[in-house]
């Protein structure tokens, strides 16, 4: 009887080498305040100068979501006091953002798709960090992050469940990483979001009062935070209360949201155009160039994978969820004579499981696409079975050598000699007269028992196809 309404504001840190308005480095993890120049510190007399790379990156994003890339956008000052905001204002964009009205298609769990509107995306500078621990009741300020370029991507309130919100966030994540404008590293805060959440009785046209959940930095937490917030709001409404418009913080340890400040305490940011910066002017010719230089987008890549390699939609989805997935898959296909579908199965199956278990990602896989390709070749040429291959890849994972070396040293080569297989079959048939009777009486299922026994006796090395064929012959004769 309640419907959830969600809109997301995603902050994607643009992967420029230097800051948006100064030449200082944006590298993560340096000693506090070592990557803040006089401009980032907001010293008297300093002025911002726009890093043109961010305009290129924002334009790329706008083109990728079929948005209007504004030919003229304007930087504005958002005024508020906070110790990690050196100038007392943040340079952002207000009335004239660089990207306006686009949309993106998300995939839902039931296999259907849904379009989510992107209201706008604007450029802005990040603030520094306030460190409240280790200073005996005082606050430390680290301004390394101050001036790091951000693209804030604001969605329409188009999502109706936490799962949809996560699907949208994943889609944007894939997009910005494929576009090479954001490294997508959520642990380092390069990709994070605020969620605007409200509920309303099903069928009601007006939105309910919303709460804004601040700074959520993982897909898992987005889902959890929204669900717990929805629960909280429904509880309040069902017990006759009303929702207060406010900013709330999600506490992952306690799995609860807490109020940070209400609308009444909200700042009047007194936005006005920054007189230190000129409007950003973009020509049609330049935009055409950016368009021509766009890389293959996840959606296009997915369609191509299905078309070119005959992949299942699900597999194609997984393989185009990040550039490293897609790159690994295509490198694997190039490195092997095995069927692309087999390659896809390996990447989304065994390899994904091993990566998961070791808590690492495909870009850092201990088994390279080339090494895995060599293994798949041995399946394709019947040197080993798929089952043996799993044993081999475990050994490769541990660094025991190449596929061929392991197959050789462990003697895992498949038995394809008909005489040798026949000898084993004869032994098994002789040892199991009862099952032979059953088979001959028409109980076909018993064949599986015999296959299993033969494979076991051959330590898995007998060629399963041959075993099947020879068994049928012998049992029927």
């Amino acid at each position, binding site marked *: 009887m309640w419907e959830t309404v969600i809109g997301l504001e995603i902050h994607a840190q643009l992967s420029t080498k230097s800051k948006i308005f100064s030449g200082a480095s944006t590298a993560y993890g340096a000693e506090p305040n070592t990557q803040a120049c006089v401009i980032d510190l907001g010293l*008297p007399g*300093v*002025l911002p100068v726009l890093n043109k790379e961010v305009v290129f990156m924002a334009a790329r994003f706008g083109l990728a979501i079929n948005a209007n890339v504004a030919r003229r956008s304007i930087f504005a000052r958002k*005024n508020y006091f906070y110790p990690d905001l050196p100038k007392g204002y943040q340079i952002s964009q207000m009335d004239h953002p660089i990207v306006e009205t686009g949309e993106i298609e998300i995939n839902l769990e039931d296999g259907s798709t849904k379009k989510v509107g992107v209201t706008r995306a604007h450029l802005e500078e990040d603030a520094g960090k306030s460190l409240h621990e280790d200073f005996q009741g005082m606050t430390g300020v680290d301004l390394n992050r101050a001036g790091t370029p951000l693209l804030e991507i604001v969605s329409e309130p188009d999502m109706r469940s936490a799962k949809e919100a996560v699907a949208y966030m994943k889609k944007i994540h894939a997009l910005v990483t494929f576009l090479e404008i954001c490294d997508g590293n959520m642990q380092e805060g390069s990709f994070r979001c605020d969620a605007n959440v409200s509920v309303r009785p099903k069928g009601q046209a007006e939105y309910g009062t919303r709460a804004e959940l601040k700074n959520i930095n993982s897909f898992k937490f987005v889902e959890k935070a929204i669900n717990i917030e929805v629960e909280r709001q429904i509880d309040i409404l069902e017990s006759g209360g009303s929702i207060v418009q406010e900013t709330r913080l999600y506490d992952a340890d306690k799995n609860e949201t807490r109020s940070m400040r209400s609308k009444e305490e909200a700042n009047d940011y007194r936005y006005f155009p920054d*007189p230190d910066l000129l409007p950003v002017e973009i020509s049609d010719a330049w935009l055409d160039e950016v368009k021509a230089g766009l890389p293959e987008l996840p959606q296009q890549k997915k369609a191509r994978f299905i078309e070119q390699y005959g992949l299942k939609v699900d597999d194609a989805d997984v393989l185009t969820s990040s550039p490293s997935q897609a790159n690994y898959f295509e490198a694997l296909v190039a490195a092997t004579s095995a069927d692309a579908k087999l390659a896809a199965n390996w990447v989304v199956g065994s390899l994904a499981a091993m990566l998961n278990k070791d808590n690492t990602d495909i870009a850092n896989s201990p088994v390279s696409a080339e090494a895995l390709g060599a293994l798949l070749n041995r399946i394709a040429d019947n040197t080993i079975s798929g089952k043996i291959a799993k044993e081999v890849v475990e050994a490769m994972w541990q660094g025991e050598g190449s596929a061929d070396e392991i197959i050789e040293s462990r003697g895992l080569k498949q038995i394809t000699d008909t005489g040798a297989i026949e000898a084993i079959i004869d032994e098994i048939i002789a040892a199991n007269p009862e099952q032979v009777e059953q088979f001959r009486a028409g109980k076909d299922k018993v064949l599986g028992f015999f296959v299993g026994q033969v494979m076991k006796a051959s330590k898995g090395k007998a060629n399963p196809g041959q075993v099947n064929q020879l068994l049928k012959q012998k049992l029927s004769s």
Partner: protein
Amino acid sequence: MHSKTVAEISAGLQQGEFSSTEITQVFLDRIDRLAEGLNCYITVTAEQALEAARKADQLRSQGKAGPLTGVPIAHKDIFCTQGVKTTCGSQMLDNFISPYDAAVVERLNDAGMVMLGKTNMDEFAMGSSNETSYFGPVKNPWDQKAVPGGSSGGSASVVASMLAPVSTGTDTGGSIRQPASLCGITGLKPTYGRISRFGMIAFASSLDQAGPMTRTAEDAAMMLNAMAGFDDRDSTCVDKEVPDYTANLSDSIKGLRIGLPTEFFGEGLDPAVADTVQAALQEYEKMGAELVDISLPNSGLSVPTYYVVAPAECSSNLSRFDGVRFGYRCDSPVDLEDLYKRSRGEGFGEEVKRRIMIGTYALSAGYYDAYYIKAQKCRRLISDDFKKAYEKVDVIMGPTAPSVAFNTGEKTDDPVSMYLSDIYTIAVNLAGLPGMSVPAGFVDGKPVGLQLIGNYFEESKLLNVAHQYQQVTDWHKQTPDAFK
């Protein structure tokens, strides 16, 4: 020696009549003797000056001297100077040693100039009398009961009293031209974007512009040659070729069309000042110029427009002075809000706080359209008036200020009357045009300035027109008796 102009010092150094060390010492001695009475310097950098002078002399001996090498100068304390206290006339920055040089300072250092010290100014350049300075009011060398004008009051005072041959100033609504007028010197505010604002502490970013304060137009031209030019650290600095501003000083101004806006000669202008300006205009007629009556119908909007735009920008520009990273911090703050409130409440003076309040109000939700947006529209109307005028005339002239220097304390309790002393200069900043003030006579022994307003980037023309006037008059050669 101290009465020499920049051009004369430059020539003397070139001809070996004296060294930079000698002339620098002359000014340092005078500063020692006379500066305190005028309260025109906040910081005197004697040791560094002598060191720089020695270096300049060395360069000269190696044949590497330019026209300004070894010439002493004073910088308005709004320009950041590396390793030297940069206060902006405020308690807020009384302890601020800049870690870097402003673009203007850097350029003039590179030209070999010798910094004598930092001049007093209205706090954060907000004022027209130099009475808002945390370091106390500056006195007018012509009449020590009178103000020198502001906000570059210290810079005007040091040049008029010959405690420096030249100084730098900044002009947001008249802060170079009005004190130049009140102190009887030559002041130039170039076109917005002609000189880099990098390192110049911002008051109102869309209006602020640096410029030279000198004894003559020729000196101003020499200075502008070194100060102007593109700087990629200031996005509003214009990438436009810098001509040799001294090249056209001697051009004839026969046939020059001088526009006289009726709005600049109406009510509020002291009749004696009006007469002085008329006399100057007659000199121009004698030189073959043509006087043309024009109208700037929206000039009445200038003061109200300025007092929305400038405070709005300053309310944001001055947010960085929060007691967190540098500058004044209150004693024992109990929490963050207390730190902000007391640091800013104690560190800023009354006029600065007044303007921050006005600006904050003008930008607030619900008022923004009625004030800030409307002011931007008025600003466009004011600029359009000038554009139309320049279809008919080459330069525009009128008084720089409505009166000669008023007495210290006379207007401090009446901010609106104080604001009106910039009534003729403000429109020029709103339009971004170049403007000058040149000495044109005296009323009751106090100097009167003639204002010259040029079209965009026509500083050469302006300097030529000013220089020609200084060839037929000697008002600019007058010096106050107490400082001969």
